[in-house]
């Protein structure tokens, strides 16, 4: 057996095994190719899936990409999308909340009965409805975190009890109409700046500008601290892609009725919750609890409080989502929030890339996922086949949308450590 030995100089600061990306644009492309191979593409497969769905339905009907239809889709995603944002929080803990559909229903019922039947001020009605939602979430959180009842059972009990409450609140008359031209009606119908196209452009460009500024600032701070930073070429590319999307969206919306309020609110909430999750201690704590409850506990995190607060957030989001659904259907009825509402929202979060097993995901996945689902539903409605066939196709397309993602993630499958 040979005896050969290399004696090297003291350890260099950077690990030589880390493949460093080439500088500039070429490096970016190389990295992209590598990620493509190893399946670290993040949201790219879902976005591709979305494009595919749009292309197919456009081909079949010629109407899918029409500005009115796309505007409709942005209106319809707000309600289930907000519920999905709440679901993302719960999924990050590795838990599930089955009650969110019922909570959406109760919240709408409360707001409807107070404002339309009892003549309470509409803003106050909304506030009470949201507070009731948050309180229900707190109750779930309490039973889960403090008593130790599995979240599945607590929220299943909630699903039943709150839908009973919803019927009870609506009472014999059953359905409460949305006030004409009131606040709740506006949730779905108002276009910011009353459809002024300038408003849409300002929003789009401000968004892109802020993104660019943030990226550049971060780069400056990292370089100053001697840490590796994103190259300027990559920042330019990213800003370019986002800019393109923003411009396309703005001009489409302006071809129809302008910037829809529900879209602004939904996007705003996604941005805010994303910030909370990624850039605050609280968000970090949620990830920690979801990634390993025992490690989180030993790190001194108040696990019970994190859990309770997350159930409050999810319930609050559901309550808000319920108001958007109410606005969209023009009434609060006994069926609001039942049926597929919850499943669609959970599916949205999962399709968007949030793990069901905790510790991995972001609220943007709620947006992406609900876009996929609403596109399938709306696309099939445009094709208008039989209800039974529609169900079958929805199932198949849903699966197909996720297969793309799963296959690309395959190679990346982690296999433990050690």
């Amino acid at each position: 057996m040979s005896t050969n030995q290399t004696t090297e100089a003291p350890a260099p600061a950077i690990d030589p095994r880390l493949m460093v990306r080439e500088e500039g644009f070429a490096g970016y492309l190389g990295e992209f190719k590598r990620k493509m191979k190893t399946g670290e593409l993040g949201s790219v497969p879902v976005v591709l899936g979305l494009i595919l769905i749009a292309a197919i339905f456009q081909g079949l009907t010629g109407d899918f990409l029409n500005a009115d239809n796309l505007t409709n889709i942005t209106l319809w995603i707000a309600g289930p999308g907000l519920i999905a944002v709440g679901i993302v929080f719960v999924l990050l803990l590795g838990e599930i909340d089955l009650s969110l559909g019922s909570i959406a229903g109760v919240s709408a019922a409360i707001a409807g009965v107070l404002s339309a039947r009892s003549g309470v001020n509409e803003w106050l009605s909304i506030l009470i409805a949201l507070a009731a939602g948050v309180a229900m979430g707190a109750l779930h959180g309490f039973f889960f975190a403090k008593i130790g009842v599995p979240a599945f059972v607590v929220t299943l009990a909630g699903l039943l009890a709150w839908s009973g409450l919803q019927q009870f609140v609506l009472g014999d008359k059953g359905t409460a109409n949305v006030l004409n031209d009131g606040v709740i009606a506006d949730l779905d119908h108002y276009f910011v700046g009353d459809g002024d196209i300038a408003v849409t452009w300002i929003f789009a460009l401000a968004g892109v500008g802020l993104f660019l500024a943030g990226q550049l600032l971060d780069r400056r701070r990292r370089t100053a601290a001697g840490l590796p930073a994103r190259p300027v070429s990559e920042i330019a590319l990213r800003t370019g892609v986002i800019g393109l999307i923003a411009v396309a969206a703005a001009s489409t919306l302006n071809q129809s009725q302008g910037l829809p309020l529900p879209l602004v609110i939904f996007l705003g909430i996604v941005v805010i919750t994303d910030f909370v999750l990624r850039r605050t201690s609280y968000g970090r704590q949620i990830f920690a609890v979801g990634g390993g409850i025992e490690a989180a506990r030993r790190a001194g995190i108040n696990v019970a409080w994190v859990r309770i607060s997350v159930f409050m957030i999810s319930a609050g989001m559901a309550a808000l989502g319920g108001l958007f659904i109410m606005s969209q259907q023009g009434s609060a009825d006994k069926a609001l929030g039942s049926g597929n509402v919850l499943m669609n929202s959970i599916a949205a979060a999962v399709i968007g890339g949030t793990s069901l097993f905790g510790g991995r995901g972001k609220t943007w996945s709620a947006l992406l996922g609900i876009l996929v689902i609403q596109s399938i539903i709306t696309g099939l409605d445009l094709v208008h086949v039989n209800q039974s066939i529609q169900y079958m196709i929805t199932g198949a397309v849903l699966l197909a949308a996720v297969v793309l993602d799963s296959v690309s993630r395959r190679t990346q499958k982690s296999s433990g450590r050690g």
Partner: protein
Amino acid sequence: ACGKAGDDKKDSAASGDTKSIGLLLPENASSTRYESFDKPFIEAKVKALCGDCNVKYSNAEGSASKQKQQFDTLIAQGVKVIILDAFDATSTASWVKEAAAKGVKVVAYDRLATGPVSAYVSFDNEKVGELQGEALVTALGAKAADANVVMINGDEADPNAAYFKSGAKKALEGKVKKVVYEASGEWKPTVAGQKIGTAITSLGKDGFQAVYSANDGMAAAIITQLKAAGINVPVGGQDAGVDAIQRIVAGDQAYTIYKAYKPLADSAAELAVNLLQNKDIKSVASATVDSPTDKGIPAKLLSPKVVTKANIQDTVIADGLYKAADICTADYAAACTAAGLK
């Protein structure tokens, strides 16, 4: 063998309860009628006819299997007369037969349950559809002949939905130009709203002149979407929910179908009490109908009515279904005054 099960069963309360009437209704989510009207009306009438009788009520929540359990539970409790609004009328043949063998009598309510039922009270569901179609034609007036119609139907899983659809089509045939878009709203307002949204996309804002909605809940969402798109065409539903009456008052909805629940409920209560007390039922159920399994069932058939802005006062208010105050909340006060409701 050393004996048959149940041989030594004592004559417990379970084997005969002469003061209870069972009431089984099919669901409570897609329509408000069952718990708002059917149930309270029946309870009141039973009380009026037989002071110490009581009604044992259960709701099947849209499941035949659950309804069968409730049916059997009533029998286990010793109930001898059951008013049954079957969730799925075709599956009840064996239930009713088993019940009859145990001396339990069944009054078929609203939907004609198969099996040897003792009596039947109902509206004709096909007729409901026809009235809906005719009302839509009336609302279109002179424009009817050139009108394209969008149909948002009920859930395919509900047998009634098929009757409504076929009745409405029968009435529309030849009277309007064409049914240009047809989809199931699954009895869900949100779904119905989205269906109409895509109908607008594929047909264009001028692509249709009227919308048939199978019930009021879906009509609410449809109207909301149409308004948002700036479209003003007649839309109608059924069930005469208070929200629908409000929309009719405001001119948003063209009509609804009012099934006169009170007479329906009263007749059912009367039949049930008579059966319980072994009295004659022919006086109440003078007609007869045939079901797929049985012939010559004593029946009472009522006609549903169309409600439009013009006859609100004479129908739902006159029948005591609603008080004007229920309808004329702040948001609708002005429209009410204009419509002359009080």
